[in-house]
Structure formats: structure tokens, C-alpha cells
């Protein structure tokens, strides 16, 4: 064997060849956007899976199977997602997927994952086709809850009844934008302007100016990431000292930065793990504390929003595999549908044959930034 062939042979073997499947191992694959637009959320999702896998493995694994996580970076790109899904299926022999929030990547892979009979638990919304939805389970709060929580806040606090929508073009945001019209009508709120932005826009003064000119007293922003901070800064720069900004479910980092700019005029929807003090004693508090204790021990003050859902996803997989007493794809899928009442760190999950979005009760609350901390708005 020449030097070159000896150099590349292990790489080729490692890249393309299927390893032997150990009987006592449960392989859980995750297609996550560790780079690209979904990186902040999906890194949290990955770390949540990792934490849960360590926790369960320390307790003997799932139904006697040691969990082996196979994590692949899809670079927040659907084409790359197809490749990594294929790799995990063919080369790693993954038995269950617990993938991140890159909706388009999960949609692109869903047909062949479903065809192979592998269950997918997802951070993202469900794929569109019925055949794919049969194998997919979502751990994302339904978009309606995010919209409802914010509009209800406006109804209950103050007299703002005219609002503007500022959204990005991601699938989740598109669904939410469409829902916003219905929810506003139900609650008697008028949407006077609807503007869009791109995730990498460095300035949104024009859109905000139009929303203000239309007479809106609040902006409901639909979309995640640093754009929230940009909007907050633009509102301040435009001198709109009455305008409220109500942000989407997101990581704590942009919340803290936007809150530092707008103070109490910046509000956001939040799950319990971001404002733990708001959760009264009981099963929900206990489930959240179990996760947060381990999370903080390993990651300190890092936000646990996406990680909490990943933790819950792994715990639901645990329940399903244990109940099925099998790692067969179809058996696990059927068992996932039977997880009809599980209290997780983020929410209570209720799956069924017709309900593959696990969160059916609104777990979100409104928060505000005070003294550099996220606190609940009473």
C-alpha cells in the first residue's frame, strides 16, 4: 500500500462504509444546523440531546440500550440535510431521528426517512405530506400559541389595538403570519401593516417607519435571532418612544440585548425554562428543575429553550422505546403515538394517532427584561 492510499483509505472507509450494529446500542441521529442561520437554536438542541443521552445512559440507557448519538451538521441547508440524513441512515444505521429546527432540511429528508420506516422527532414544524407526518413528531409549540399569547397581552394590558406585523420568510414565520390575521380578528385587534425582512438585514427602519405611519402602537415581530436587537435599536433611533416590540420565542441572548435598548417596551414570549421563577410548585416545576439543574451544572447560564425541548424529545423517545420494548421503527412510531401525557421540562406533551404536534396546551408566557434578567409580566 502506498503512502497516499494508506492515508486516504481510513478516511474513505470512515466516510462511506457502514459500521457494524451493536445489539445493545440505540442509535439516535440528529441533523442539525450547527452553522448557518439555525446555528444558535440547533446548537442548543444538540446540547440538550447530549445532556439527556448522558443522563439516561447513566441510568442504564433506554430499555437496556446504551444511547449513541450521531450528530451531523446540515449547515442549515436542505441539500446538505439530504446528504447527512442519507449518511446517518446508510452508514450509521440510525434507528430514530431527533433532528433540529431546519424545517426545509427535515422536509427534504422526510419522504425517504418515512419510506425507510424511521421515526423522526423534530424541533421544527411537521412536514406537509400525510405519509411523512405519519412518521414525524413535533416538539415545537404550535405557532398559534405564540401569536395568541402576545395579542392577549395587548388586550389585557393598555389600549393598543392597532398593530404591525414584522416577519421573516422562514416556514415557521410564514405560518405564524397567516395565523396572525385570524387570531387578531378573533381578539378584536387590527393589523394595520404587515412588513417583511430578511434574517441578515442590517436595518429595518423603513419597515418600522411604515408600520408606525399606519398607526400601529405595537410591532409583533415574527422571527428569531439578532434581527430582534436590530429592530429594537431602529425603534429607538426613529424616536418612537411609545412603540412596543413583542418578540418571538427565541434564545435569551437577543432578548437581553433588545431589553437593554427598549426597557419595558420590549416584551417576548417565553417558555418556563427561561423564567423558572414563574412556575409554581408541582409536576411541571419538578420536570423543569430536573433539566435545569443538570443544564446549569454543565452549561452555566446558557439559555435552555431549545435544549429543554431536545431534552423532552429524548425523554419521550425513552418512554416510547421502553413501552414498545423494541427499537423497531414501526413499533417505536406506534409507541410514540401512545405517549399521551408526559410532563416535560418545557411543556406537557400529548401525542396520539391524530396528534403529532405534542404540545396541545399553551405553555408560553410573556416576559420582560429587568436588571439584566428575564422576568414574567404579571
Amino acid at each position, binding site marked *: 500500500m502506498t503512502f497516499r492510499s494508506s492515508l486516504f483509505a481510513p478516511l474513505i472507509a470512515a466516510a462511506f462504509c457502514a459500521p457494524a450494529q451493536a445489539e445493545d446500542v440505540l442509535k439516535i441521529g440528529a441533523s442539525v444546523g450547527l452553522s448557518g442561520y439555525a446555528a444558535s437554536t440547533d446548537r442548543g438542541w444538540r446540547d440538550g440531546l447530549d445532556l439527556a443521552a448522558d443522563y439516561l445512559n447513566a441510568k442504564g440507557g433506554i430499555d437496556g440500550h446504551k444511547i449513541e448519538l450521531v450528530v451531523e451538521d446540515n449547515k442549515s441547508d*436542505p441539500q446538505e440535510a439530504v446528504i447527512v440524513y*442519507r449518511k446517518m441512515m446508510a452508514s450509521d444505521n440510525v434507528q430514530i431521528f431527533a433532528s433540529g429546527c431546519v*424545517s426545509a432540511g427535515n422536509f427534504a429528508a422526510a419522504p*425517504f426517512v418515512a419510506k425507510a420506516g424511521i421515526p423522526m422527532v423534530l424541533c421544527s414544524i411537521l412536514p406537509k405530506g400525510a405519509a411523512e407526518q405519519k412518521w414525524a413528531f413535533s416538539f415545537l409549540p404550535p405557532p398559534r400559541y405564540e401569536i395568541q399569547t402576545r395579542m392577549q397581552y395587548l388586550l389585557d394590558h393598555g389600549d393598543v389595538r392597532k398593530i404591525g406585523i414584522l416577519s421573516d420568510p422562514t416556514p415557521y414565520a410564514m405560518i405564524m403570519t397567516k395565523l396572525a390575521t385570524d387570531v387578531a380578528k378573533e381578539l378584536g385587534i387590527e393589523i394595520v401593516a404587515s412588513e*417583511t425582512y430578511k434574517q441578515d438585514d442590517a436595518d429595518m427602519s423603513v419597515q418600522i417607519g411604515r408600520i408606525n405611519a399606519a398607526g400601529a402602537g405595537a410591532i409583533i415581530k415574527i422571527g428569531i435571532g439578532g434581527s430582534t436587537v436590530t429592530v429594537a435599536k431602529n425603534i429607538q433611533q426613529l424616536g418612537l418612544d411609545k412603540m412596543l416590540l413583542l418578540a418571538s420565542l427565541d434564545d435569551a441572548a437577543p432578548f437581553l440585548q433588545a431589553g437593554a435598548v427598549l426597557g419595558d417596551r420590549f416584551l417576548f414570549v417565553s417558555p418556563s425554562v427561561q423564567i423558572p421563577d414563574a412556575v409554581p410548585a408541582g409536576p411541571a416545576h419538578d420536570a423543569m428543575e430536573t433539566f435545569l439543574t443538570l443544564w446549569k451544572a454543565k452549561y452555566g447560564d446558557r439559555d435552555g429553550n431549545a435544549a429543554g425541548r431536545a431534552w423532552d424529545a429524548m425523554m419521550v423517545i425513552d418512554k416510547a422505546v421502553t413501552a414498545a420494548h423494541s427499537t423497531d421503527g414501526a413499533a417505536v412510531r406506534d409507541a410514540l403515538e401512545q405517549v399521551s401525557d408526559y410532563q416535560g421540562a418545557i411543556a406537557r406533551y400529548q401525542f396520539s394517532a391524530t396528534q403529532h404536534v405534542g404540545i396541545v396546551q399553551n405553555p408560553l408566557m410573556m416576559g420582560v427584561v429587568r436588571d439584566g434578567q428575564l422576568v414574567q409580566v404579571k
Partner: protein
Amino acid sequence: MTSPDIISTKAPGLAWARILPAVLGLGVLVYAFTSNGYVVTVVGFAAIYGLLCTGLNFFMGFTGQASFGQNAFAALGSYGSAILCTDYNVEPVLALVMTMVFSGLVALVVGYPTLRLRGHYLAMATFALGLITYEISVEWTDLTQGYMGYSGIPPLSLGPFQAQTDKQQLAVILVVLALGVLAAVRLRGSRFGRACRAIAGSEAAAGALGIPVARYKLISFVIAAVYASAAGSLFAHFVGFISPEVFGTTMVVQSFTMLYLGGIGTIAGPLIGAVVVSVLPELMRGLKDYQNIGYLVLLLAILIYAPKGVVGLLDSLSGKWRR
């Protein structure tokens, strides 16, 4: 007695430089058809990009122009096939041909004013074309479904034959690629191809020789667009789902990398480049967080030591061997 080395037009050592890529290519195909879905997917994407780059090579390599907007025509092909097949139940092969014709017409209309520009200005104009198409695919949600993407696109089929499995789909893609390469070979050797190469050498000189420079540049642009459209259609059928991210600037960078790494202006170059750029990141996947670094370092090394691409490197090695 005259030495054969002197009178022979084919120098010893030249053959292996031509045969080696073909043998390696054949090896990749045999490996793909005997391997799992992962390898088939990687090779399938390489073949699709190979087709796109073969077209781009016609405009950039043979005609010496610059286009940063091939992603626009790939998007047209992809969305065209997706919409025709999913919403109107058009046969995939017919949809592929229809979108190729449509893309060609769009290229004709857009290229007529655009190709009056030269050099960097032409590059910027074509780049803008790609960006505009990308924005349309994001914003015109009623037609393209925006970032929600188009799903449920059927695999390629012709009459009763439907490419159901990954390997059957790969076979169909390879057939289309082979036809595309064959057409490129024939075109390059034709009167039109020779005129394009003259334009690449010097537009002024070509014009002085009576070559209708503007018309030939436009035809070359249309040909590249038709190839890109076919590649986009194949992508849609191969994956079964498309969304705007696929046709962003990443596609432009990827196709340029493939073209220059393989060897611009050659027939084999785009194909070699497509395989190398598709396979290298997978070989580096074991490096996890350092995958991109490893891949890019290797890419840089290839470009430094083979500035004329892999084909140029093989030719120069073959020349050294000859000497």
C-alpha cells in the same frame, strides 16, 4: 530512420492523462451502484452539478465570458418541473424539456441586453440575475411556496418506467449527463464551438474575422442556461423537495469551484471538479467541527499546485513524463 517520438503526433504518456479520469470516473460509478444510498446521493448531486458546470463551461470556458447567474436558470428548471409535475401532472421528462425551453427563452430575453456588458460588468449583471431569481423564489409564495418549499415532486419517469429507487434515479441522471457531455463535445468541435473559442481569445479579432460576436455570445449564454435548467429539474426529481436556499449564492460558489478546480475550458474538467467538490467534504466529515477547515485547506492546496485545475495538472504531468 526517424524516431517515432519525433514524428508521432501523440506523445507517449499523453494517453494515461486522458484515460485516468475516465477510469476513476468509472470507478466512482461502479462504487456508487454497489454502495448504499448515502454514496448514491453524493454521486447523484455530483452528476447534477456536473451537468450544470458543463453548461457553465460552455459560456465561461469556451466563450470566455463570466456568469454568476446560473443559479437563476437552475431555479427556473427546478421550480418549473416541480410546479408542472405536482400541480398539473405533467410527465417529468416533458416537464424537464418544457422548462429547458422556457429557461432558454428567458436567457434569450435577459441575455440580449445583458451581454452588451463585458468583464466585471457582465459578471455583476448576471450575479444580479441570480439574486433577483432568488428573491422571487422567496417572496412569490403563491407560486413557489417560499421557504416552506415545494414537496411531493415525483421521481423521473418516462411512460410506464418510473425511476423508483435511488440507483434507478442515479442511472437516469447519468444518462442525461452523458447526453449533455456528448452535446458539449459535438458543439465544441463544431464551427460554432470554434467561433466561441475565437471569441474567448479576442472578441475584437473574432469580430474582424467575421464572427457575429454578440449573437454567438448570446447563443452560448442560452446553452448554459438550458444546461442549468436541466440540472435544476433533475435536482427537483432526485430530492423530491426544493426550497430557495438550494439556489442561493452557495450554488454559484460551488459551481465556480468545480469549474476552476476541474479545469475550465475542458470537457472533463467540470465533471472532475463536480466529483471532487462533492466527495471531498464527505471524506472530511470525520473531522466534525473542522470539516470545513480541512476541506478548504485541501481545496486551496489543489488550486495552488494545480492552478489550471486537475485536468491541467494531469496534462502537465503527462508533459513531464513525455520529456
